[in-house]
């Protein structure tokens, strides 16, 4: 569908495919808004403004889809629009069933749009959905009782052709317009002509637009007595159903008689001019033309709708590709490094002799930092982008589990780097799903425990220092200390009764420790919390659990605001400098002689309090000689990743600092045990250690 068609030599000569991308983005936004508004709709007190806004979403998608030739999307939105139109006119009362069907239709539209964008897959079958919507739209309108005499079954077939069939003429013969395309080869459409000619009783068919049009679409005038469905079935011999559109032959515009500016001819061709309106192109009866119509409208007070925020937002935003922003961030990263190098170099100069230079460098430092912050903020998007998917998900999940769940969202405006937002979505979804599945009890159980029948899940985001804190909290049954301990022992995990609560809760992060077995009796997907923790750790984040049995549970996820800058601990080994992500550092201490023991041939371990952990010798990993003086002593840095701890043996701790992360793979090649690189203030390149890889290394 997204194939480009060479623009025909039509008057405008315009290739419509160039507008597809904007249409897809816009349709996506409209569908998301519609879903959000449907979920928030108060069925008993639905406001006019809300119903209108929902209608407008469907309406807007339909208009675009019809214009740009996505017939299937236009067909489905047309049905939705019909139902929504009746709702906003209060001809029908909103029902839960309507919301359900409209939500399902929204999903189908997303699938259709994804397909048009080249996602592949089979055509979405929307016949049942369309029939459902049509039935609901017909159901409540008393005046439509006669018109809707046809049962649901026949509705399904008659609505399969959109727009609705043209009214039959007296003779039973109808004048239709068939639109074909877009097709990879528009000439295929001519096969339809031949096909039509072979079957005499069908009627006549001839090309419109001289068989050519600007947008790669072909139009035909069809005079026939056959039904739309019969025709479409026939045509699908040569052309896919979604590339066919059958409707009444209309020109699509008109002028009002005597309207100012209206032209002389008055053919009804889908547009029109009002004969006495201002601007109509004729010669409307000279005297009245200019005065009459406006005079009439002066009597009316202009009706304007209450302000809505969506309208103005668009004119003040700019769509830019992520690539461009990333390039900018990269350049600023380089600038920060250059600035740091200059600052370091200037330290060797006598400040008194180079006052101007020093002052200039100080300005440069401040401006660079401001610039960096400003550029980073471009990539920041609000958490609402992630949160917005949960109302729908919880609604469906709660319905399936027979639970009543209310979702409270706080701090949706909190901003986070786009890259992180994409990566945090899955772990958060697991957490929210877990809360609903395993945390919240059934309404009966809740009432028995003197809780409200509705469980509450709270999603909260806030900024705390240089990181973002996302909390998933529920008022469900919480974690059971006794059950967790029992379960851990069953798994062979050493879990004495003396463990603190926090340590007990942390047990659910152990690999293969399904929360489902412990927390609830509901069988189902007990999502491994170890996976959640690993995913968050790979983003340099951390997870914390708090719970009280019978009262609920809270999972706090802490993340850095961006992946491009990282808090690091710089360590020295010999002449080399390495960076450890600060979030993975647990503690560090001076190595005393005899602390390190060798097990087997070459495996070394160190005892820290009660725990033995493997020693990673960076000297061996990167084959850099350690400085002689330090040999045997040095400093041990305990780091944690993937639920395990290892001790890294280094010569010295150089300090903590923010580093700009450079991708090594794209600049050089993948290096084992290294996740990236950065440039230090003195111009040296320092490798950023991949703690997860070091932990895995220690296992072999």
């Amino acid at each position: 569908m997204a194939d480009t068609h060479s623009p025909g030599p039509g008057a405008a000569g315009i290739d419509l495919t160039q507008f597809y991308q904007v249409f897809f983005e816009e349709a996506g936004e409209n569908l998301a808004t519609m879903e959000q508004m449907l979920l928030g709709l108060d069925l008993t007190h639905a406001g006019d403004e809300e119903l209108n806004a929902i209608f407008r979403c469907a309406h807007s998608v339909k208009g675009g889809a019809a214009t740009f030739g996505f017939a299937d999307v236009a067909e489905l939105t047309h049905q939705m629009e019909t139902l929504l139109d009746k709702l906003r006119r209060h001809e029908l009362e909103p029902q839960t069933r309507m919301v359900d069907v409209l939500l399902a239709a929204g999903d189908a539209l997303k699938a259709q749009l994804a397909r048009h964008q080249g996602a592949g897959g089979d055509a979405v079958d929307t016949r049942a959905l369309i029939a459902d919507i049509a039935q609901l739209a017909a159901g409540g309108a008393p005046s439509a009782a006669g018109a809707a005499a046809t049962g649901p079954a026949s509705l399904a077939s008659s609505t399969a052709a959109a727009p609705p069939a043209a009214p039959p003429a007296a003779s039973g013969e109808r004048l239709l317009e068939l639109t074909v395309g877009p097709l990879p080869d528009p000439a295929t459409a001519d096969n339809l002509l031949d096909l039509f000619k072979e079957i005499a009783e069908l009627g006549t068919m001839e090309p419109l637009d001289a068989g050519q049009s600007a947008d790669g679409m072909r139009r035909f005038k069809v005079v026939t007595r056959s039904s739309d469905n019969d025709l479409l079935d026939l045509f699908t011999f040569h052309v896919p159903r979604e590339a066919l559109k059958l409707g009444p032959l209309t020109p699509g515009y008109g002028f009002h008689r005597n309207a100012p500016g209206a032209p002389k001819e008055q053919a009804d061709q889908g547009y029109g001019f009002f004969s006495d309106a201002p601007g109509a192109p004729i010669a409307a009866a000279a005297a009245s033309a200019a005065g009459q119509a406006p005079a009439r409208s002066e009597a009316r007070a202009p009706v304007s709708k209450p302000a809505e925020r969506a309208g103005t937002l668009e004119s003040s935003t700019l769509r830019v590709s992520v690539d461009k922003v990333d390039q900018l961030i990269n350049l600023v990263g380089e600038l920060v490094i250059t600035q740091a190098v200059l600052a370091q170099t200037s330290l060797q100069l006598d400040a008194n002799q180079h006052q101007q230079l020093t002052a200039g460098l100080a300005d440069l430092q401040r401006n660079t930092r401001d610039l960096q912050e400003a550029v980073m903020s471009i990539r920041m998007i609000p958490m609402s982008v992630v949160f917005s998917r949960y109302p729908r998900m919880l609604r469906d999940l709660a319905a399936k589990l027979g639970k009543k769940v209310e979702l409270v969202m706080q701090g949706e405006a909190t901003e986070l780097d786009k890259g992180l937002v994409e990566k945090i979505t899955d772990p958060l979804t697991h957490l929210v799903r877990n809360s609903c599945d395993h945390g919240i009890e059934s309404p009966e159980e809740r009432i028995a425990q003197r809780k409200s029948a509705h469980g509450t899940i709270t999603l909260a985001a806030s900024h705390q220092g240089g990181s973002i804190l996302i909390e998933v909290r529920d008022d469900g049954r919480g974690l059971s200390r006794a059950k967790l301990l029992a379960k851990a022992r069953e798994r062979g995990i050493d879990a004495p009764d003396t463990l603190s609560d926090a340590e007990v809760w942390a047990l659910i992060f152990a690999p293969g420790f399904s929360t489902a077995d412990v927390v609830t009796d509901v069988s189902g997907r007990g999502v491994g919390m170890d996976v959640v923790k690993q995913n968050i750790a790979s983003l340099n984040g951390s997870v914390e659990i708090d719970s009280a049995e019978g009262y609920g549970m809270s999972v706090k996820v802490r993340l850095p605001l961006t992946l491009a800058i990282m808090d690091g601990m710089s360590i020295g080994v010999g002449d080399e400098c390495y960076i450890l992500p600060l979030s993975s550092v647990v503690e560090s201490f001076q190595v005393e002689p005899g602390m390190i023991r060798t097990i087997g041939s070459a495996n070394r371990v160190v005892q820290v309090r009660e725990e033995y952990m493997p020693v990673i010798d960076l000297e061996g990993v990167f084959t850099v000689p350690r400085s002689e003086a330090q040999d045997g002593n040095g400093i041990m840095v305990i780091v944690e990743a993937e639920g395990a701890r290892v001790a890294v043996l280094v010569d010295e701790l150089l300090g903590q600092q923010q580093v700009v992360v450079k991708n090594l793979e794209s600049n050089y090649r993948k290096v084992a045990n290294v996740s990236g690189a950065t440039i230090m203030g003195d111009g040296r390149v320092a490798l950023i250690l991949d703690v997860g890889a070091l932990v895995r290394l220690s296992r072999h």
Partner: protein
Amino acid sequence: MHSILAVDDSASMRQMVSFTLKNAGFTVVEAVDGQDAWEKASTRDFNLVLTDQNMPRMDGISLTKKLRENARFKTTPILILTTESSDEMKQKGRAAGATGWLVKPFDPTKLIEVIGKVIR
């Protein structure tokens, strides 16, 4: 050169209309809804106003009424773009003082054809 005020809340429609009209040699000013259009119309004149009907804040009919109340727009052709081709919409347009209507979807060729009938 003739200037046209193109009003639509849909960015893709706006882009398509604007591109088509510019291609045909018109100067185009875009507005995102009736209110925006009204503000833009208060600062300069246009040879034609092409407006969508269903928009947030101010719809096409209300915009038409407001424009007609202004002496500068008494005779300017105003075309309302609408997917609602019903007689009801046409009558509302007529009462508001619109010059004519154009049913969506339309293709670029048709747009130029219709505009050619009112602007020369």
